[in-house]
């Protein structure tokens, strides 16, 4: 089946905000298969550890050695193999990390409702905001696939994330002090929704205040090739022409690449938003292979030196 590569606009959105969202992209029969395979329940009376143990014992989510090529990681007819073969998902993965990336790890996150905590004397808490793995200053990037196999209501505390945070060099949970950030999003979605995160995107699990268990399956994928010109540049192309800056009577065109790369997030500091634009431009140079690319003169200005 044809797997449509990402468009230039989608790549620009990914460069600027660090994520792409595909609502209800996974067909219902795969969602159903996934939930049945893991023995999902919504109102189990079991305890936290017991529920995880029963899923692990079922073997429906296999153990996978890090570095395993994605094509070889999952049994061919399994729900997870079917999930990554969904054309829009396959095309997006290929556009970001290449045709056969490596699986770094995966994890089935189960978020339990408050009643599971009554026997533990622990207070249910949202997971603090963090960046996965560790300090990672590479230009190359991994992606994290977040798959929500059932509807996520607001009360279920779907994954919280901070758009535009992907280029901040921080050390994992060091930012746990930040409880709320302007512009943060909480995933509320229909079954079969997939989000693809740049590895650096700040995120955390929400507090599940519903009566049902919440399931999230996450896979981290690493490129095994240079991530250059992997998307469909002819799909939804954007203007890259130089344009006047600051003193201009024209509103910024939504069809210009520079507009997307220089749109700030509401939490950016006044000065660091310009540094974020610069990070995005460097990212675009990396994925396009065009070392002369610039948006609104941000890099040309500071590279203008003569020997």
């Amino acid at each position, binding site marked *: 089946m044809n797997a449509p590569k990402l468009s230039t606009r989608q790549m620009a959105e990914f460069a600027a905000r660090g994520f792409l969202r595909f609502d209800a992209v996974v067909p219902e029969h795969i969602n159903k298969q996934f939930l049945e395979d893991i023995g999902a329940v919504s109102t189990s009376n079991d305890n936290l550890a017991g529920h995880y143990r029963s899923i692990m014992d079922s073997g429906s989510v296999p153990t996978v050695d890090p570095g395993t090529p994605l094509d070889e990681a999952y049994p061919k007819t399994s729900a997870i193999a079917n999930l990554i073969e969904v054309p829009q998902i396959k095309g997006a993965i290929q556009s970001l990390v290449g045709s056969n990336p490596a699986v770094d790890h995966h994890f089935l996150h189960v978020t339990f409702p408050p009643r599971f905590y009554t026997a533990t004397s622990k*207070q249910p*808490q*949202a*997971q*603090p*905001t963090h960046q996965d793995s560790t300090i990672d*200053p590479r230009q190359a990037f991994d992606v994290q696939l977040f798959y929500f196999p059932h509807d996520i209501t607001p009360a279920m*505390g779907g994954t*919280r994330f901070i758009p535009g945070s992907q*280029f*901040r*060099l*921080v050390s994992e949970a*060091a*930012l*746990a*002090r*930040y*409880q*709320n*950030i*302007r512009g*943060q999003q*909480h995933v509320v979605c229909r079954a079969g929704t997939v989000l693809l995160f740049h590895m650096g995107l700040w995120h*955390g699990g*929400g*507090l599940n205040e519903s009566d049902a268990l919440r399931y999230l399956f996450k896979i981290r994928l690493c490129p095994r090739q240079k991530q250059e010109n992997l998307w469909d540049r002819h799909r939804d192309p954007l203007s890259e022409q130089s344009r006047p800056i600051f003193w201009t009577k024209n509103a910024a065109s939504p069809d210009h690449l520079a507009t997307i790369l220089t749109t700030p997030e*509401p*939490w*950016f*500091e*006044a*000065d*660091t938003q310009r*540094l*974020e634009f*610069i*990070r995005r431009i460097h990212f675009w140079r990396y994925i396009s292979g065009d070392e002369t690319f610039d948006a609104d003169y941000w890099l040309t200005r500071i590279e203008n030196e003569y020997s």
Partner: protein
Amino acid sequence: MADQHDWRQQVLVLYLETSALDSKVVGWSQYDGTKQHLHMAGDSSEPPYQSGLDALYAGWRLFQSSPLLPHQSGNEFNTSYLKYEFFFEKWGAPSE
């Protein structure tokens, strides 16, 4: 009401748009030693105050703010943690 000697600290952390205390809040956290409220990640979509100055108007006392540091050579264009962090406190009676 508990004696003032038994009062507990309430901490408000505001992250601002610039180093100026009257600039816009872009992030916020609260820790309540009185146990009246348990705050946690993602628990509100709007900040309790629009600026650091608004927090002063509401009676919060500033006790720490981020210094302005020169940029390290070779690291000038990296972004990292939220840059303009301000710690405030109040004191209040513990929850019964």
